[in-house]
């Protein structure tokens, strides 16, 4: 960074050389030399970062049309900075480093010979993916639009849903090399000032060179040493993002990433979907109970099965126990080993299904589900009840994709501990996991709220989904019991 802090200077070629040197002679730096009313100028852009047609129409044409007798460099600069309407975004450039920074953000930089300052005009027009469907969070009755890789498009998608001046976007930059644009999104009056300040500080403390995924900023936003659960959630749905910032949360958009990070996150949010609001309350409540059940099935069923079969057969009914015994007698491995093998096989198949192109991914499912499963049972390698258990477990895991990492780890640990020391092992793991979840805070909002600490009105809406008409006491995260410390005696 030899040119950091160096002024642009009055020599056109000197300034161009300095900017070129700043980029190390990178081939994507375009320099167009021209004359405006007899004054030599240069227009610099980065290849692919600007929309050429827009640039030609909004900058080149007016510049060529500027005619003044005996025009001095200052006249051209005055025309550019005061009279011309070239772009909605413009900035005066004094330093070489400023010019480089603007170029990287998709600006066109105009340098004038004999004048120490230049002008930068926003002409961003890099190719980006069109607004597509939210693949990772599909729904039935909500929007079909997902956040975009382009931060500006994502901002527009949010603004279209909250047409209020209280919606605020705050642009920041992070990443020592990538200089990536991040945008804090919140609703003024709903999001606490302390949360905004803390988020800003967290973003400013990011030390990474590159910001390529939401995972690069989440550790800074949700500092929770040793926490098994995350106090920061992600979404690619603009409607979910809007609902969450309306609940007093703050979202962070990342340029180049179609996912927004949202904090603080609550455990219970993993069980809510957009369709809950579209369905009848009784049905939404039923669906939510199914999701809770699926979480416990996915995390604990294989462990319970192994523990019950190996250590506590008395909990199973007699007929079920006899069936299990008959099936297990034919298999060569101990039940715990059998279960671990099948879980690992399932994880391999799942991973292959995600990484492979979609057309082949389907074939992997068929191979895994039919060929391996059926062949393994027929050959007597694994028992049929065990395969049914894994089938139910795997299907349940798909119900709450946001908790998949936690459910996968819990599943394996439950099988290991349940197989080794029965329900006692599962109990110890459950106690430790429970405490871990209970101490997880995100910006002083308990991860387990509103269940514990208990906030009656919000907890009621979790288990018995209330209709929008009857909900009068909507609470933001800051108003939940336990946010910023337990209240005196109101909550249990």
């Amino acid at each position: 960074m030899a040119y950091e802090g160096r002024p642009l200077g009055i020599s056109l070629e000197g300034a161009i050389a300095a900017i070129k040197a700043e980029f190390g002679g990178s081939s994507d730096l375009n320099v167009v030399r021209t004359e405006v009313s007899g004054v030599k100028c240069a227009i610099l852009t980065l290849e692919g970062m600007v929309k050429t047609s827009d640039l030609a129409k909004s900058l080149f044409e007016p510049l060529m049309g500027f005619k003044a007798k005996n025009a001095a460099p200052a006249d051209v600069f005055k025309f550019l900075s005061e009279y011309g309407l070239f772009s909605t975004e413009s900035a005066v450039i004094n330093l070489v480093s400023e010019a480089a920074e603007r170029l990287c953000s998709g600006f066109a930089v105009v340098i004038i010979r004999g004048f120490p300052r230049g002008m930068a005009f926003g002409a961003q027009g890099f190719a980006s993916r069109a607004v597509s469907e939210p693949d990772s969070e599909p729904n039935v009755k909500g929007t079909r639009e997902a956040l975009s890789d382009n931060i500006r498009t994502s901002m527009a998608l949010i603004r279209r849903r909250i047409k209020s001046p209280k919606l605020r976007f705050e642009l920041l930059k992070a990443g020592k090399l990538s200089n990536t644009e991040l945008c804090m999104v919140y609703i003024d009056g709903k999001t606490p000032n302390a949360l905004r300040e803390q988020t800003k500080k967290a973003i400013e403390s990011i030390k990474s060179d590159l910001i390529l995924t939401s995972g690069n900023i989440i550790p800074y936003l949700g500092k929770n040493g040793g926490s098994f659960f995350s106090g920061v959630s992600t979404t690619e749905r603009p409607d979910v993002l809007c609902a969450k910032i309306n609940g007093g949360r703050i979202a962070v958009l990342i340029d180049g990433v179609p996912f927004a990070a949202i904090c603080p996150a609550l455990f219970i949010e993993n069980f809510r979907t957009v369709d809950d609001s579209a369905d009848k309350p009784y049905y939404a409540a039923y669906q939510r109970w199914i999701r809770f059940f699926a979480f416990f099935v996915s995390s604990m069923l294989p462990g319970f099965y192994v523990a019950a079969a190996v250590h506590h057969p008395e909990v199973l009914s007699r007929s079920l126990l006899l069936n299990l015994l008959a099936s297990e007698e034919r298999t060569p491995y101990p039940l715990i080993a059998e279960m671990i093998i099948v879980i690992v096989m399932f994880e391999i198949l799942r991973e292959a299904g995600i990484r492979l192109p979609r057309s082949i991914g389907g074939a992997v499912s068929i191979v895994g589900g039919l060929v391996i499963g059926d062949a393994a049972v027929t050959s007597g390698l694994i028992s049929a009840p065990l395969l049914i258990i894994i089938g139910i477990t795997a299907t349940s895991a798909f119900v709450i994709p946001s908790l998949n990492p936690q459910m996968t780890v819990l599943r394996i640990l439950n099988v290991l501990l349940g197989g080794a020391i029965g329900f006692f092992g599962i109990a110890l793991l459950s106690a430790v996991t429970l405490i871990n979840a209970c101490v997880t805070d995100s910006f002083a909002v308990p991860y387990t709220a509103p269940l514990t600490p208990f906030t009656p009105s919000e907890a009621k809406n979790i288990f018995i989904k209330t209709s929008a008409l009857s909900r009068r006491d909507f609470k933001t995260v800051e108003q939940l019991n336990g946010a910023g410390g337990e209240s005196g005696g109101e909550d249990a």
Partner: protein
Amino acid sequence: MPKTEKISAGQLMLLLFLSRIMHTMIFRARGFSSGTPLMLGLFCATALEAVAAIPAVLYYSKFGGDPSAELFKSRAIWLRLLYSAYFAVIAGGTVALFTRFLSSEFSKTVSPAIAIILLCAAAAYCASRGIEGLGRAGTVVFWLFAALFVFMALVNKGGFDWLNLRPLTAGDGEKFAEYFFENLSSAWWLPMLCVLGESLNGGAAKAAYGYLALKLAVIEALLLLVTVILWKYVNVIGYPIFALGAYAKSDFIQRFDAINMLVWAINCVLAVGAYLHICAKPFKSPKIFSPIFAAISAIFAFAAYFFGLEFDSAWFLAFKSIGVAALGIAVPGAACIKAYVSGGRKK
């Protein structure tokens, strides 16, 4: 929104209740013939505990702060260490009694030594994460216990027989006295309140008397159920609550033994975690001192289990009672008097 490391009165109430119900879970009934003297013993003990709680409640309602510091200022560390030592023994005793239950009912599942080590390690982890986590987790475990209790009562194989609930006779006096004193000696919730009251965000009276009401209601209900449904089974099985889930008329599940053990084990970790948190409280770094006190408690538990140190013997009963009287009643009482005398310091 700063973090306060405080708990609400409701959370403390449930934490006290869970540590008490842990004691009931691992209580082995010897020569159980009728529940009536036990129910009366519990009622009388609770009434006395309500009076005994007045100094601690008064201190936290009127003055607040650490009663040890109120009494001894800079030398309060010695009194705090006494609390730590007392609860290290209580934690060791709880682990030992739970291990005895495990080894008698699930002898093939886990060896006693492994059970003691694992319980103490898990409890040390819980204690090191602070009182907020314990308080919040306590609410979840309470509802888990309540759900299991209701479900077990609903599907129990035994039928109600009110003839089992026979009136008190002159011969029940000894049983009544035994259970009355046993209950009083188990009132270590008073020293717990003295230590954890400092972490309370107001509502000491609500926590103390809410706990007593909850304890009375739940344990009396348990005793009533055990008495009218299956008092005969209790003598066979030994553990009254365990007997409740031993015989289920459900096609889905045959017996609740292991399910009971699962919930008890979670509760045991939480209760011992709370004791260890109290042990480590005088020290600045609970993350370092919780495992140290867990190791000390494990040594007590090993001694109890393998070298015949009886935690339900007369000497232990006396130890518990002295602890309750000195640390749970005398210390807050003296602190109250000192605070009044030294000018009626306001909270």
